[in-house]
């Protein structure tokens, strides 16, 4: 699936739920299902700043594509992280760097997230794009 197809899929999934508690329940379930990051990558270097909860993000570059793994000490955060990972992981650095991430707004999540959570999510997206841009410039050399 392309980045946009995955985003469309997530938006469709969220349309199944009537109220926000159900949506949160789904987000929490996604968090629980997120494949765990390898413990060795839960270092301070991989910590994303700007969130009340802690988020670790690790990037692997294999056969021209970037793969992300992540974790958080808070379950809702983990669920949000899981969605972003699902959308961006397994694509080329160029695709990730150029991606327009709109699913958070499309499902109305942005306005429901507390500002600290929302800022944390933005920092995470920014960090993933930074990885992509870094690998993009490496492959161009």
């Amino acid at each position, binding site marked *: 699936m392309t980045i946009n197809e995955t985003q469309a899929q997530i938006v469709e999934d969220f349309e199944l739920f009537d109220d*926000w*508690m159900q949506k*949160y*329940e789904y987000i*929490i379930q996604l968090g629980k299902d997120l494949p765990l990051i390898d413990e060795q990558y839960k270092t301070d270097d991989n910590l994303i700043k700007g969130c*009340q*909860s802690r988020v670790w993000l690790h990037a692997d570059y294999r056969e021209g594509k970037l793969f992300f793994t992540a974790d958080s*000490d*808070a*379950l*809702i*955060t983990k669920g949000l992280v899981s969605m972003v990972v699902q959308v961006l992981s397994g694509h080329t650095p160029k695709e990730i760097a150029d991606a327009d991430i709109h699913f958070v707004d499309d499902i109305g999540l942005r306005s*429901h997230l*507390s500002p*600290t*959570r929302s800022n944390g999510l933005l920092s995470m997206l920014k960090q993933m794009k930074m990885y992509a841009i870094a690998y993009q410039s490496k492959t161009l050399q």
Partner: protein
Amino acid sequence: MFNHNDTTATPTAPDIEKIRSEFPILQTKVYGKPLVYFDNAATTQKPNVVLKAMDDYYREYNSNVHRGVHFLSQKATDAFEEVRRKVQAYINAEHEHEVIFTKGTTESINLVASCFGKKYIKPGDTILISAMEHHSNIVPWQMMCEDRGATLKVIPINDKGELRMDLFDDMLDDTVKLIAVTYVSNTLGTVNPVKEIISKAHAQNIPVLIDAAQAIQHIGIDVQFLDADFLVFSSHKMYGPTGMGILYGKEKWLNEMPPYHGGGEMIKTVTFEKSTYNVLPFKFEAGTPNVAEVVGLGAAIDFINEIGLDYIREREQQLISYALEGLLSIDGLRLIGEAKERAASISFLVGNAHPFDVGELLDKQGIAVRTGHHCTEPLMNIFKIPGTVRASFAFYNTEEEVDKLVAGIKKAATLLA
């Protein structure tokens, strides 16, 4: 306005709906659900009388205070100075010029740290604070100690979150020049034995600053009875507007301390060579003050007096007992802070759930609580936790709201398990 003094309405059967109807925000809905507001330790909601007093000020007599020759300025000055007397009466200060208007508790503490520090603190001196202080009663002293070559020492707490008064006496050596301690912990709800602290400190000639930000709205305070040297609090935590606070200081200290900020109002004469300073309280009130907010605080004090602090205290104690009982019925809930004497904040954790997650799921159910370290990071380190969920109560909360909180936490705990 309120008939709680009437024999038919005791604290067990208050006219709660009437009280709640005075607070417009309590009638609002969030996410389509009636707002349940349990973040009162962060700020309290404002009654109509406060909103109206501020509105009236801007509509009818907005004017700069003190130096004006005209009618409006005189009217504004009278209203402004009347509030100083209301505050004086509220805390039973000996003189009205011992009441200094500031921007809030934080500015009040910074003022004392800076001015007291300049006048009295020398290298080798010690400032004593407690382990449960808010950052605003830690950092100003750290900055002052760094500046003056002094040392900051900390009164420890026990695992219930109470001050180790057994260790306190031995900490009062000759180097201690000031003690700054909170009356009520914003995170744990602990009520500290401030009267005992002050009397022991005074036996060694050590002055004491009391941070009353979390006490002023819950407990009757008499600065002369306590014999406090300084006592600080904010308007917005006692149903008044934000951006306004009080520094109470004994006349002797305030007279001896140098001014804080320079500017208009705080001077007697100004030449390019040298300025002389105004008398108390104006010496510490440089610039145009927050007149509307001061007027709003006056209305808040009238409001509290009308309801009665005794009633407020009794009602809040009922709510806390009821809440503690409900919270402790939740599987895996752990209280952070179990002091025998407590006021209106309860901190807790649920199982392994992150406080941030619990707070967010409560929010989606219309319940406002606070999560995180509550500006008491050193305290969180002592308890070895990243933060807590804190529910803090005001007399306008109800048992029904507490039931919603308990049910909401149970729901969150199930989702997060």
